[in-house]
Structures are given as C-alpha cells and as structure tokens.
C-alpha cells in the first residue's frame, strides 16, 4: 500500500519541488561516462574553438629568407674575420646558455602516479589534456587539473606525504610554491574524495591545504580525508593528527577519530566515531 501522505497544494511551487525531489529518483551518472564525455568535449573544443596557430609554411619561409641573407653576408667576409666571428659567437652562446640556466627558475612540480585505471590531466601550461594510464608517472605544475575515472592518482610533494585522489574525483593544483623558506601545496577539490597522509610533520613555513568550494582544510602532520559532496557540503574525517577546517569566519580543529560535516551557511559541528 502507498502512503501518499498529505496532499500537496498544487499551486505551491516549493511543495511541488519537494514532491519531485522525494518521489522521482535520479539515476547517477557513472564516473566513466563523465570521463568519456569530458574527453569528447575537450577534443571538440580543440577542434572548434581554440584559435588555429600561424601556418607553419609562412614561418619557415621567413626563417629561410633570413638565413639566406646571413649566409650572403658571411660569404662576403675575409677568412680571418670569419674565424674570429665564429669564435666570438661560440663564446657568446655558451655565456648565454649558462646565464639563462642560472636565472630562469625551474618550474615547481609535484609527482603524480596513476593507479588502477585512467586519469585525465589538463595541463595549465599547454592548455592540452592527456589521458594517463595505470602506472604512468608524471610531473604536475601549478594550475594543472586532474580528473580520475576508475583509477586513483597518488600525488606527492613533501617528503613522506601522499594525497590519494580517489576514483571519480576532480581536483586542481591551485598552488605549488616556495615562499618564506618553505614549500606550499594547495589543492582545490571540486568533486569527489582526496585522502591525505603526512607521516613526517611539515616544517614551520610549509603549507598543505585542501580547499573545496566553501571550506579550507590545512594540516601539518596527519592522516585525513576530504570529500566534496556538493558545492555546498564538505565532509572532513581525521584518522590521525589534527587538521584545521575553516569555513568563512568559523574555524574548528578536527582531531583523531573526529569528523566535521561542513554545510555552507550552517554552524560547523564536530562528531566523534562513537556519536
């Protein structure tokens, strides 16, 4: 038998929305399908929307003309001047190479390893995406984004630290920096779960932060999980150590065996395993 409950007032939009939300079940989109659709969309974007590069033929032609002019000029020089010029050019090139390598900072990277299935990485630097397979090891830079399907991605930056991006998650490497004598790593978790382990406590100026749309979780040495349930809700669980959870003006410290369900606009409340 069906308990229809109270008859809804049909002109009340809120009542109807509630009725639909409770009585019509939504079938969830499988993560592998989302991965496939995202991949197709990005391919289509590359083909349809990204401006085409300059035609390579015109660039090559310009270069050839310049080389031809240079060759003619060299041909007009006497032999001793040609030798002198070649030596000077070699020394200048070496000085330039050494100078550039000294002054150009190497981009900071975090090491990522794909495990158990594919993951798509969107490179901020090149604006290209790559599908990485199980067992692939790659270097991620600030701004890179990772979408996991059936597989997970293990991300390391600090000694004895790992962030496990679980299957079906979407993260962005929002900060990878060296400032104030320390290292800073910040991930923005748009969707899904990231499990973090930091077995050796971080140094004084190091920073390890996981952000979701409404919450920032920072740790120095601990074992914890962050789940972005929706843009409005984040769940943080701590297995060992402590993490600090910040939502707007509210700050709570989540200790071992505790969890906090952070819902935007509501008060942060700690719960223990036994609750």
């Amino acid at each position, binding site marked *: *038998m*069906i*308990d*229809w409950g109270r*008859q*809804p007032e*049909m*002109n009340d*939009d809120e009542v*109807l*929305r509630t*009725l*639909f*939300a409770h*009585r*019509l*079940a*939504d*079938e*969830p*989109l499988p993560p592998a*399908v*989302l991965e*496939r*659709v*995202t991949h*197709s*969309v*990005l391919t*289509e*974007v*590359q083909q*349809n*929307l*990204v*401006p085409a590069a300059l035609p390579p033929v015109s660039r090559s032609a310009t270069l050839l003309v310049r080389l031809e002019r240079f060759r003619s000029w060299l041909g007009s020089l006497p032999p001793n001047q040609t030798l002198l010029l070649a030596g000077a050019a070699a020394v200048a090139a070496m000085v330039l190479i050494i100078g550039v390598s000294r002054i150009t900072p190497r981009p900071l990277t975090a090491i990522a390893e794909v495990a158990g299935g594919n993951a798509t990485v*969107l490179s*901020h630097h090149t*604006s*290209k*995406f790559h599908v990485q397979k199980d067992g692939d090891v790659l270097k991620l830079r600030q701004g890179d*984004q990772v*979408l996991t399907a059936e597989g997970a991605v293990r991300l390391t930056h600090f000694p004895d630290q790992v962030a496990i991006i679980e299957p079906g998650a*979407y993260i*962005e490497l929002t900060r990878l920096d060296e400032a104030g004598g320390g290292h800073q790593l910040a991930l923005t978790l*748009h*969707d899904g779960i990231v499990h973090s382990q930091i077995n050796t406590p971080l140094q004084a100026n190091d920073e390890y932060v996981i952000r979701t749309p409404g919450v920032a979780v920072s740790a120095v040495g601990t074992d914890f999980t962050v789940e972005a349930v929706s843009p409005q809700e984040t769940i943080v669980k701590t297995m060992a150590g402590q993490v600090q959870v910040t939502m707007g003006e509210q700050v709570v410290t989540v200790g071992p065996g505790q969890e906090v369900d952070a819902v935007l606009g509501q008060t942060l409340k700690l719960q223990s395993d036994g609750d």
Partner: protein
Amino acid sequence: MSTPAREEEDAAEVEATLLRRLREGDNSAWTQLTQVYSPRLYAYLRRNLPAANDAEDALSETMLAAVRAIPSFDGRVSLAAFLYSLAYRKMADYWRRQHATAPLNEAIAAGHLGGGSAERLAFEELFDSLPEISRQVLLLRYQVGLSVSETAEVIERSYKGTESLLSRARSQLRAALDRADQEHD
C-alpha cells in the same frame, strides 16, 4: 547582508564570465561546465529515454552540440536553459529515429529506472501516465528547477503558453494523485 537581487546580479556576472571563457575555448571552463551539468542532464535524459546507453549517447551529443553552438549563443537565456534546450532536441531526435509505434510514456516506463521504494515506483508510474508535454513541463520546472521563461525557451513555446501548460499539468497531476489516494483508501 546580501539581498536576493544582489545574489542574482552576482550569479549573472559569474555566468557572463564563464560564457566568455567558453567562447574563447578555455579548456578549464569547458571542464567545469561538463562536470557541473552532465550529471543533471543525464538524470533528465535518463528519465525520458528507455535505456541507460541511450541517455549516455544523448548526453554526449548534447555536450558536443553545446561546443558547436556556443559561438552563436547570445546569452539571452541562461546556460542551463541553453543546455536543456539542446538535450530536449536530442531527445526528440532520438524518438524520431526510433519511429516509435508505442506511446512515448509506455516506452519510457518499459525500460525505466526500477528499484526504489514502493512510494517512488507508484509515483513514477502515475507521473509517466500524464500526457507527454505535461510530463516535460513539470520535469523542467520542478525537477530540473528552471524558471517559467527558461522552460518556455526549452520547449519553444511562449511564456503565456508555458504558464498555461504548467497550470494544466499541475491539475492533471493533482487529479492523478487524488485518484491514487481514493484507490488506496
């Protein structure tokens, strides 16, 4: 303190920025759009198509159509209305291809979600018995959460016509609920 009007202005600004990035072919913006809307579009398509793989194909076609159509999309309606319009057309294409001899509602019900509580199954059955256009306006308005004007854009009707359709659909749903309640008693 933010007012609803201010929140609406902020949301419009966020959407305008996103639309600009989408037109420029910003991969990050497209990833964001796909991640946010795909689960919702899939739920809508799944409710209207008989099998999961049909809904998956329609979702993929909808998102690819969005990439191709975004340069000519003027932003006059919301991105949600734009995407659901495309999904609605893909769904119509599907049923045209099928040359369905069975009424649409029966075909949907035959392959539908399954599982769930008795209450939900009974409501789904009752809902699927409504006329097709009534089902669509109720779904778009109350399950997807579009406004009346956005719903009108999706089904390509006038605002007044859509209001009238919604009113009739609500009456039909109420009558069906009343009948089910009497049978239950």
